[in-house]
C-alpha cells in the first residue's frame, strides 16, 4: 500500500507544480521582439564594448529602440550593417572610418630615469613617479595597448613603441582608454599626418630628453597653407607665477583634421621630424 501513497503524493505534488509553472509562464510572459534575436545574430559577438553598450546584446537592444546609430558598431562590415538596416527598415548613416595613432616616437630613443623592476605593465609603471622614462609624457613601452587590442592590430616594435596595423584597427577606442599617458587618438583614415609627440614641456626641456619631440618652434604653423596645424600656447612668462601654471602650457603642435589636406609641407619643414606620415 505504501508505494501507492508515495506515487500519489509525489505525482500530485509534481502535477500541482507543473500546472503552477505553466500558469506562471503564461502570466509572467515577457514579450520580446523577434528582430532582436536576428540583429544579435548578425553582430560580431565579440562583446568588445566599442559602441559604448554592454556587449553585443545590449547594443542590439539599443539600436532596436533607436537610441544609437547602427554605425556605432565599429567591427561589423558594411554589408552586415546594411543587412541590419534592412531588418529595421531604416537607412544606414555612415560615420567616417577612423584609425588609432600613437602620439609619441620616443621609445628606446628616450633614456630611463631609474631602473623599474615592478610589474611589466604600463598602468602599474605609471604609478611609480609617472613611469621610468626621462620624458614623463611619453610611451612607457610595456605594451598594455598590445595586450588589450581585441583585434591584434597593435604590435610592439623593436623600438619599444606600439605600431598600429591600419587594416586590422577597428577604432574600438580600447587602446585610447587603457594608455595611462593618453597617447592614442583616433584620426580619420583619410588623413595620413599626425604629430608623434605628446610632450607639453618647454621646447628646451623636451629637446634635452628626446631627439624627436615637439619643441613648439611653430615652423609648421607658418608653412601650413590651410591653417590646419597650430601650436596652442597661452603661455605668457610675465603672468605665470607658479610651476603648475608653467606646466599647464601647451607647447605642442596639434592638427585640425577638419582642415588638414595631408599635403606634407609640415613634415618637410619640421626640424625635429616630429610630424610623421602614417604608413
Amino acid at each position, binding site marked *: 500500500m505504501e508505494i501507492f501513497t*508515495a506515487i500519489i503524493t509525489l505525482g500530485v505534488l509534481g502535477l500541482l507544480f507543473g500546472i503552477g509553472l505553466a500558469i506562471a509562464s503564461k502570466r*509572467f510572459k515577457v514579450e520580446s521582439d523577434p528582430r532582436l534575436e536576428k540583429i544579435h545574430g548578425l553582430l560580431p559577438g565579440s562583446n568588445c564594448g566599442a559602441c559604448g553598450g554592454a556587449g553585443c546584446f545590449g547594443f542590439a537592444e539599443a539600436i532596436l529602440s533607436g537610441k544609437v546609430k547602427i554605425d556605432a558598431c565599429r567591427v561589423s562590415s558594411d554589408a552586415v550593417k546594411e543587412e541590419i538596416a534592412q531588418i529595421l527598415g531604416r537607412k544606414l548613416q555612415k560615420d567616417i572610418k577612423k584609425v588609432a595613432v600613437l602620439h609619441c616616437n620616443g621609445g628606446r630613443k628616450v633614456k630611463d630615469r631609474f631602473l623599474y623592476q615592478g*610589474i611589466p605593465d604600463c598602468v602599474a609603471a605609471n604609478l611609480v613617479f609617472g613611469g621610468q622614462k626621462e620624458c614623463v609624457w611619453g610611451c612607457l613601452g610595456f605594451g598594455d595597448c598590445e595586450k588589450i587590442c581585441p583585434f591584434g592590430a597593435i604590435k610592439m616594435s623593436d623600438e619599444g613603441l606600439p605600431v598600429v596595423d591600419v587594416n586590422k584597427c577597428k577604432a574600438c577606442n580600447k587602446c585610447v582608454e587603457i594608455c595611462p599617458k593618453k597617447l592614442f587618438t583616433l584620426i580619420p583614415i583619410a588623413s595620413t599626418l599626425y604629430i608623434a609627440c605628446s610632450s607639453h614641456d618647454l621646447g628646451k626641456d623636451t629637446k634635452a630628453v628626446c631627439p624627436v619631440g615637439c619643441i613648439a618652434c611653430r615652423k609648421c604653423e607658418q608653412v601650413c597653407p590651410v591653417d590646419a596645424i597650430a601650436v596652442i600656447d597661452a603661455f605668457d612668462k610675465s603672468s605665470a607665477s607658479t610651476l603648475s601654471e608653467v606646466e599647464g602650457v601647451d607647447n605642442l603642435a596639434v592638427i585640425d583634421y577638419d582642415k588638414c589636406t595631408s599635403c606634407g609641407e609640415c613634415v618637410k619643414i619640421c626640424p625635429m621630424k616630429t610630424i610623421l606620415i602614417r604608413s
Partner: protein
Amino acid sequence: MNATQFLSIFISAVFIYNVIFSRFLGLCSFVAISKQTKPALAMSLSVMFVTTMSSLITWFIYRFLLIPFGLTYLRTISFILVIATFVQLVEMVIRKISPPLYRFFGIYLPLITVNCAVLGVAVLNSDMFFLNNKAVTGSFYYSLFQGVCVGLGYTLAMLLMSGIRERLDLCNVPKALKDFPLAFIIAAIMGLSFLGFNGFRF
C-alpha cells in the same frame, strides 16, 4: 528555543561547517564565479536568498507532507522538485517585475537550481531539527536561520576567494598554474585552514 542555539547554528554554519570549505557543497559555482568580487557578491546574495527560501518551503513540505504520510525516504526527490520549481518561479517573476534585478540575478538563478548547497541545507535541516520524525521545538525558526547562515558562509567563502583571485591576476604565475589550477590549490589551502575551526565544539 534560545539565543545560544541560534549562536551555535550561526558559528557552525558559517565557520565550522562552512558549506564550501568543510562540507564541499556548491563547488562548481564557487570556482566558476569567484574571478571578480562584484559577480561573486551577486552570486552569493542570490544563493543566500534561495537557501533561505528553500529552507522555509522544504520545512513545510517535510513537516506537513512527508512525515504524516511516512514518506521521509523520498525527501531528496521532493526537495529537488520544490527547489527547482521555486527557482523557476522566482526567475519568471523577477523577469516580469524588474528587468534590472533580472539582469543582476538572472544569469545566476538557473545555476542555483542545481546547486547542491541549496539541497544540502534542506537535507541538513530535516536531519538536525527533526528527531524521530517529530519537529523539535522551534525547528521552523532554526531551519530558517540555518538557511540564512549557510548563505552567509557561502558569501564569506566567495568574497575571500574572489579577493585572492583578483590580486593573483596581477601576479606573474607559471603558465601551467594560471586560473583554475591555482584556484584549486588555494581552495585546498583555505579548506585546510577552515579545518582549524573544528576545535570549537558546541
